[in-house]
């Protein structure tokens, strides 16, 4: 084998370009920066996030901005819908006839002025006479009690101004109560906004409570492993089979209905899913080298768990929390709906929907707005949760 000596001229300076080859050209991103970047690309998720921000903002500052209060009752203004049929008397005078045969003076653009008192109320003939702008308005509601064969069109009433039958001249939106009023004359807009406050608050607290219990339980179970894990997970298995909603109901019955008991009931049973997720994460993470390194350096189990394991398991935890919020809102609405909700005059979306059930046929708008609020919020959290799941999944990281 020929011996080769390295001569001096074999050496040469490395070219400048080659030096740069090792430099990382893309800015290095942390896990969270990357997740946020990917979440921003998901339009639906950002829409959901924006809606949630809007809802939270409304819930926090809304009650101070709108002019009506959620609990002030004005019985004479009960059940006024958000869209009202108005009748024209002359250019100055308009009135609106309420479904309970009460007359209100309104402006042409839907501003409620005052209730008009009847000048005559003929109970036997089933009609009422009012005087509006100097003209005589006759409200004849005898048709409502007629048999179907006498009244084939199903007319309920007729309105005559100076003896001439009139039809509604216009349908305008209610300027005073944008969402209408409920059966006790409370402003629906104020109540829906206040309902957002209660519903979101319950969901948030229940989720935070579940987060702490679940993380602690799952963390301990996963970290210590072995027999401890075995026993703790058997308990979780058992709880998992129990229909939890029934126990939430029983708990609320025992503690008594109200804001506090709903939070306790929701917070105490729904941590099982969270505990499972955390356990699974901790089980795999605790085998990582950095945990070994931390232990070698003498870190306590507590420190390893809080500083090393939980932060690294945060992705799936956050996804599961985002999914827990809508289910808490859902459960709260469900409980309120079967009569275990917050106590009046407090209102949550569930109690509002429940209150509206009785008058559904006549006043469907009272159910519509709280239901819309629940559905949109659930939709927003679902979109956000789906997006977060993709964004926080390290396997999809580019």
């Amino acid at each position, binding site marked *: 084998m020929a011996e080769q000596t390295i001569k001096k001229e074999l050496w040469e300076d490395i070219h400048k370009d080659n030096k740069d080859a090792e430099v990382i050209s893309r800015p290095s991103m942390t896990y969270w920066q990357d997740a946020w970047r990917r979440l921003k690309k998901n339009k639906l998720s950002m829409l959901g996030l924006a809606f949630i921000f809007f809802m939270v903002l409304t819930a926090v500052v809304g009650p101070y901005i709108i002019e009506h209060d959620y609990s002030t009752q004005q019985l004479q203004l009960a059940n006024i819908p958000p869209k009202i049929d108005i009748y024209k008397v002359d250019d100055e005078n308009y009135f609106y006839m309420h479904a309970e045969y009460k007359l209100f003076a309104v402006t042409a653009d839907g501003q409620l002025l005052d209730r008009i008192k009847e000048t005559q109320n003929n109970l036997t003939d089933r009609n009422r006479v009012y005087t509006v702008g100097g003209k005589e308005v006759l409200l004849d509601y005898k048709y409502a009690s007629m048999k179907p064969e006498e009244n084939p069109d199903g007319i309920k009433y007729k309105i005559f101004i100076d003896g001439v039958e009139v039809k509604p001249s216009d349908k305008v939106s209610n300027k005073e109560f944008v969402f209408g009023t409920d059966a006790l004359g409370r402003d629906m807009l104020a109540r829906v906004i206040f309902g957002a406050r209660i519903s979101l608050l319950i969901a948030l607290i229940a989720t935070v409570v579940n987060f702490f219990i679940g993380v602690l339980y799952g963390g301990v179970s996963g970290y210590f492993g072995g027999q401890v894990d075995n026993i703790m997970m058997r308990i979780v298995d058992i709880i998992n089979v129990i229909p939890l909603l029934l126990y939430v109901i029983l708990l609320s019955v025992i503690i008594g209905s109200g804001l506090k008991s709903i939070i306790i009931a929701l917070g105490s049973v729904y941590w099982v899913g969270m505990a499972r997720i955390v356990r699974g994460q901790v089980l795999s993470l605790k085998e990582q080298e950095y945990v070994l390194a931390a232990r070698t350096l003498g870190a306590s189990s507590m420190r390893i768990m809080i500083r090393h394991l939980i932060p690294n398991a945060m992705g799936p935890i956050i996804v599961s929390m985002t999914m827990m919020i809508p289910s808490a809102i859902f459960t709260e609405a469900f409980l309120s709906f079967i009569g275990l909700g917050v106590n009046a005059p407090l209102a949550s979306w569930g109690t509002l929907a429940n209150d509206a059930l009785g008058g559904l046929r006549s006043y469907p708008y009272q159910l519509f707005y709280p239901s819309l609020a629940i559905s949109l919020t659930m939709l927003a959290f*679902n979109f956000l949760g789906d997006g977060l799941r993709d964004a926080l999944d390290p396997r999809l990281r580019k």
Partner: protein
Amino acid sequence: MGRFLVKRTLTMAVTLLVIITITFIMMHAIPGGPFTREKQLPDAVLEALNKKYHLDDPLWKQYVDYVKGVLTFNLGPSFQRAGVTVNTLIEEGFPATLKIGLAAVLVVIFVGIPLGIISALKQNKWQDGLVMFIATLGVTIPSFVMATGIIYIFSAKLNVLPSNGLTSWKHMIGPVIALSGFSLSFVARLTRSSMLEVLQQDYIRTARAKGLSNNKVIYKHALKNALIPVVTYLGPMIASLLTGSFVIEKVFAIPGMGKHFVESVGNRDYTVLMGITIFYALFLVIMVLIVDILYSVIDPRIKMED
């Protein structure tokens, strides 16, 4: 298989005992006795009532009696309605609940799964968009909103469906749609995502490569594997359908068990609450056991010994 069955049945027995115990403790944690009324009952009457219902026995004896009662399916009397036992309430209410529950399960399986399959096979086409749109609505609209919406539109406005009771097949339509809405949407989404995942697998490519017809690949190879996560969801689904029927029965005025339960919540009829809870739990635990066994039969990867 035998060992697996024994083990699962034992776990089920323990679960049931835990449920009975928790329920019993809850029943006795309620402040005031079952006969606490606004108008104080005379002491003699109270004593006689306590004696009649064995409430003067020591607590452990009441517990043992209660467990015995549950085992022999005797859930005790109602404390609010004279002469009515929890058993009679269950007997008269359960058929109606079971009827809409079963119908809802069938709808979920025979509509939800096909929708998910269609959606996966036509990924990113309009069929997919439509199914996913409906499924998203289904999981976001609460069942009571759906139920009241159905009543308002189809009963009050269009007058094509009856709004209350459960006497003909027409009465079933509304409750079943409202009850199955959430689970149906969830199953459709689950089937879709699991089908999409399975279609990416190597064995599907192998099946196609060896020249199997498209139908055979999809229905014989893909579907079987794609349905495994769906089967897992069947257990929780039965739970959500059962408890979901509370509000549905309330809204549609169906004389089922859920209605008794909600009424008992209203008038604080504790024994009925407890009895129905235990009955529900029992039913659910057995269903979950059946689903588990079914699951291990379908998916041979699951070791029976575990």
